[in-house]
């Protein structure tokens, strides 16, 4: 598997795709999201696994998004996600609320190839009241009535994330962020940006194999140096809190958001300069 250019990787995402994204503390593919804005993708149905941050807010602001299924959209210390809030107020995106472990569970069901999986809790939450696709039934193993939530399997069309490195076999190294493996296993197509390509086979190295996702699951890879920025990447580089604060400030208005896009996303070599 030869790595693609970043924009070529973004071109593999069709309009309308159900795309899973990790949150801002776990290998978020920020450069890839900026490439999707440049490509002008439309109608994305985003899935936050289990919550959403910068990349989701950016794609919403750029008009790329039809719906967001998530357990929360937040910029963390920088506060509310401004373009998400504006879109909810304007009614321009559909919000499908979930709760964190329910999203993990729906993906685990897809990973396992079963049509549903149970989860405790949630009963009595209005999240459940607004999920006609979720069901409550009595636990068939209980002697007396024991209502339990059943969640349907959810297989994203695409999962995208930013990993540390990849090899020619398509294996990608995510380190301790093993929850990305579940996302990759559950998704029909997996697109990955990485800091760098490495020689050899990550899975044949006993020290690297435990943090490696098998290339079986990976369709394509692109090199994007500092591709998580302004999000951090394991011990490679830290979260850029000042930039996220600047984003939160600029994106408070539509005009400010346009200025952000011009400066950081659509400017020539914006990502290369990052």
């Amino acid at each position: 598997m030869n790595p693609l250019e970043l924009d070529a990787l973004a071109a593999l995402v069709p309009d309308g795709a159900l795309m899973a994204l990790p949150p801002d503390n776990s290998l978020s593919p920020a450069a890839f999201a900026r490439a999707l804005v440049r490509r002008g993708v439309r109608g994305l149905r985003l899935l936050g696994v289990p919550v959403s941050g910068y990349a989701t807010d950016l794609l919403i602001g750029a008009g790329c998004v039809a719906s967001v299924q998530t357990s929360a959209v937040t910029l963390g210390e920088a506060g509310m996600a401004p373009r998400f809030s504006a879109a909810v107020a304007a009614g321009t995106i559909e919000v499908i609320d979930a709760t964190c472990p329910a999203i993990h569970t729906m993906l685990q069901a897809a990973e396992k190839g079963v049509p549903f999986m149970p989860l405790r809790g949630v009963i009595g939450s209005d999240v459940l009241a607004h999920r006609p696709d979720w069901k409550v039934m009595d636990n068939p193993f209980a002697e007396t009535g024991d209502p339990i939530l059943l969640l349907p399997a959810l297989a994203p069309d695409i999962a995208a994330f930013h990993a540390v490195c990849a090899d020619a076999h398509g294996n990608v190294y995510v380190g301790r962020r093993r929850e990305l493996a579940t996302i990759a296993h559950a998704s029909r197509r997996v697109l990955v940006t990485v800091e760098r390509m490495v020689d050899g086979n990550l899975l044949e190295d006993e020290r690297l194999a435990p943090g490696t996702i098998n290339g079986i699951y990976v369709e394509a890879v692109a090199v994007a140096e500092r591709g998580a920025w302004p999000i951090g990447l394991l011990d490679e580089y830290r979260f850029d809190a000042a930039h996220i604060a600047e984003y939160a400030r600029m994106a408070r208005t539509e005009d400010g958001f346009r200025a952000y896009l011009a400066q950081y996303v659509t400017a020539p070599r914006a990502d290369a300069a990052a």
Partner: protein
Amino acid sequence: MSDVHPQERLIGAIARLILDPAAPPARHIAVGAASPIPAAACWLVKKLGHPVRLSLLHRPTGNPFTEGTRELFDLAGQGRIDLFFLGGGQIDGQANLNLIGTGDWPGRAARFPGSFGSAFMYFMTPRTILFREEHSQRVLVPRVDIVSAPGVSPPGVFRRGTAQALVTGKCVFAFDAASARFSLASIHPGETAETVRDATGFAYDGASAPVTADPSAAELALLRGPVCDEMLETYPEFCRRVWNRTGLAGRAA
């Protein structure tokens, strides 16, 4: 020893709730994102010498899990997390939490970030300490617009626990699950039963209560030294604001 910072008082109040001998044991506490005051309370308990395991989910380095938040939720599902902290954009008198928004679904008047894991964690841990610094009729409402997570559940619904207490910037409320009501437990210095009453949108038991105790001198010394040291990497802004500490210079201590 300088004056007690109001946030130190909240930290101390939460630490005492953690150590409440009447509550189920807190051997393993998890602390979620952007929670400097609960995190500091947990560190204080630990630095006081209590054998508690802390899983701090948002340390930039050394995250305790290798399967992300899924591992946290699995642990909670197994019953291996004894105590968690939750808040809410709205909290009502039955301890229902609203992290989703106000007005029509899904928060058309004002959207909050979302439910996070509240609809699960609130059921799975033997106890939850609710913390919301803003104490106003805007936050503490008669009935939440949207229930992210219910305070109590009907008989037959699997649930290990609910709110132990609600700590605000004005007072501490204890929660009684059987009656599904809060009662005033202590009032922070500078507040009165009346200022609490006026700022609270829901009905609660107890017209008066003792003053919330300040942290002891020993506790303050721990907060300003070793607890701050532990917090500095994750919450630099909080440490600067409360303890006037910047950078990692003092961390070697």
